Structure formats: C-alpha cells, structure tokens
C-alpha cells in the first residue's frame, strides 16, 4: 500500500544526517580505494606505510567532497519539499540538477548548465532505479483470490511518480499514455500472469493485515 516513507528524519535534521552519511561513505570508500592504490604504488617493504600515507593524504579530501555534494543536495531537496509542500521524486531530481549547477557556478554559466544537466540525469536514474526496486520488493509474487487484495497489491508505493501509469485496472495499463507504456507493460504483464493462476488453482487467503480497500484512485493529471 502507499504508506508514506517514515524511515528518514523530517526535513531540517535530514540535512545533518545526509552530510554525516555522505562524509562517512566518502571517507570509508576513499580510505579503501587509496589504501589499495597506495599499496600498489609503494616500493617493497614499505607497502603498508605507503598505503597508510596515501589514506591520510586523500581520504579526508574524498570524504569532504562527498559531504559537500550530499549536504548541498539535501539542502536543495528540503527547500523543494518546503516550496512544493509534498515529497516525491521530482524534488530529488531538481535538487540534483541544482547541486550540479551550484558547484560549477564559478566556471561560468555554460559549465554550470552542463553540470546541472548531468546532475539531474544522474538523480533521475537513481530515483528510477529506486522506484523499480520498491515496486519489485513491495509486490511479492503471491497468488491471490481476493480482487481487493490484487488491487491493493497493484497500488503504486510512490504516488507522485512523474510518469505514473494508471494502476487501477491492470489490463488497461498496456494502453496507457506513451511515456508510461514500458512501466505499465512491466506491471500489466505481471498482473495478467497472476489472474489466470488465481482463477484456476486452489489458493488460500492467508491472514492479511490490510483492510480491503476501495480501488486505488488513478494519479493521472486531471
């Protein structure tokens, strides 16, 4: 079902968490990378100390770069959430573009524009991958008799998806709007496979913790 995400902190504290997390990831990853690189590039007998030296010189710098990127991204994300008063993937995409542009602003507007484009595309890919992952994880392939349960399982976990296909009637998903066709096709096929299985074989309705809901409304722009 479409429960709002509750695992992240609310917005101002989220910036602190993201800065810390990004620095940690950069420092630990940078340490590992530069340690191995330092070991590789050192003379025999001085490998470990060469690796440690490379870590001490480079890991804080890598961590700091990650922290700046993560902190700026989180700040722009929270600003978008505050401006639009809702949470959805568009905030992250625009925040990624803004971060990329902001960090290159001293190189002039052309470079800033190119970096903004790269940042936006990168975030769009990440958000898309996250959404696909959520959809796969949130809909385990169980056979279901209950039409309400099937409709509930067909609910989109992130209702604000920019290219959301209508998910109420799965057979119609194949004929949805053109941008959403491949999403809908992915989804429509799974639903169509489930329905013949559910109709033909015997299946037990296990105890469900969801109340049977009214059909999820479609999220097409009116």
């Amino acid at each position, binding site marked *: 079902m479409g429960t709002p995400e509750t695992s992240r902190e609310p917005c101002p504290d989220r*910036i602190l968490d993201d800065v*810390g*997390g990004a620095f940690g990831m950069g420092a630990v990853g940078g340490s590992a990378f530069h340690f191995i690189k330092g070991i590789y590039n050192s003379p025999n007998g001085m490998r470990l100390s060469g690796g440690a*030296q490379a870590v001490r010189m480079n890991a804080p710098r890598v961590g*700091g770069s990650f922290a700046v990127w993560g902190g700026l991204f989180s700040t722009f994300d929270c600003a978008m959430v505050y401006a639009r008063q809702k949470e959805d993937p568009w905030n992250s995409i625009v925040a990624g573009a803004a971060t990329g542009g902001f960090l290159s602003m001293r190189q002039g507007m052309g470079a800033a524009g190119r970096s903004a484009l790269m940042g936006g595309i990168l975030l769009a890919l990440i958000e898309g991958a996250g959404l696909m992952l959520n959809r796969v994880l949130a809909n385990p392939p169980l056979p279901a008799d209950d039409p309400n349960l099937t409709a509930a399982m067909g609910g989109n976990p992130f209702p604000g998806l920019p290219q959301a296909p209508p998910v109420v009637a799965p057979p119609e998903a194949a004929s949805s709007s053109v941008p959403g066709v491949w999403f809908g096709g992915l989804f429509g096929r799974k639903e169509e496979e489930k329905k013949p299985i559910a109709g033909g074989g015997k299946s037990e309705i296990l105890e469900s913790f969801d109340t049977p809901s*009214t059909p999820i*409304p479609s999220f097409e722009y009116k």
Partner: protein
Amino acid sequence: MADPRLYPTGSGSDDRRDAAYPGSERRLYNPYQDLNLPYRQLYDLPTSPEFLFKEEAVAQHRSWGENLTYYTGVGYLSGAVAGAALGLRDAARGAEPGEPAKIRANRVLNSCGSSGRRVGNTLGVIGLMYAGIESAMVAARDRDDWINSVVAGLGTGALFRAANGPRSAVVAGAVGGVLAGAAAAAKQVGKRYVPAL
C-alpha cells in the same frame, strides 16, 4: 475527496475548522488524503507506557548508524563553519586597498573555501572515528556509560596522531580522553539545569 474519518477531531477542533472557511487564506491539507491508508491500524495505539523504568526511558536510543551520521555531520558542519570564519578573517586581513569588488569576492571565496574544507575535513574525520569507536564500545559492552565516551576519546586521539609517532599518539590520546570525559561530565551537570540533555 477528503474522507472525514481521516480527521479524528477532538473537542478543540473548531479553530481548525474555521481556518478552512472561504474567505480565509488557508486550507487544511492532509498528505494522506488520497492514499486510502489502513488508518485504524495506523493510529490505534496502546495505552501502556513504552518503558517500565525511568532509567530506560532516559537512556540514549540512537542506533550505531544514526550515531555515526550524527557525530560525523556535526563535526563536518561545525568544522566547515569555523573554517569559513577563519578564512573570512584571513581574507579581510589580506585585502589590498583600491581593489575592485570582483577581486575581493574572489579572495573571500578562495580563502573561505580552502580553510573551510581543511578544518571541516579534519573535524569530520574526528567525528567519524569517535562515533565509530563509541558505537563499537556500546555494542561490545552492551551498556552505555561514560567509560565508552572516554575510551572513544582516547582511541580517536591516538588514531588521529598515530602517524606522527607513538609519543605524539599517546599525548593526543590523553588529550582526547580528557576532552571526552569533560564533555560527559558537563552533560551530567547540565542535566540538572536543562533536563532535556
């Protein structure tokens, strides 16, 4: 569109209702209005207390990951702000008379950026080490008290200056341990006046 059952109104809800009348500039927005959540399960809370003992309730409840990101983030941000302040002072000191604004702005940006990055990175690394050692101590001892903080301070200081030789590492470790112990003691004293600590 909005399901009235989604707003469990109490007795004092008239003010909120008034705000949604036409003529006022605000509307009530419920982010969950279209999602058909199983709200009965969401808001059906038990009335028994969460913790049986007061000591449990006041103990720290951050997981090791939250501890890590918190200390690292605080360290990096405070270091960045302090470094930027230092850089600002250096830029103001190094300004030549009769310079155009662009040059001054460039000097300010450069020096704030370089000092901020240096100090921020240093404090971020210190925060990361401290949080890592403290979380490891909590996991190993299965207890949360001042010994964890002091040992984490010792370890952080020693690790930070380990490359400068053993003597330097011991001195730095002692400094770190004393600072961490002082911070823990200050927190205990502060709890008397500010209970939220």
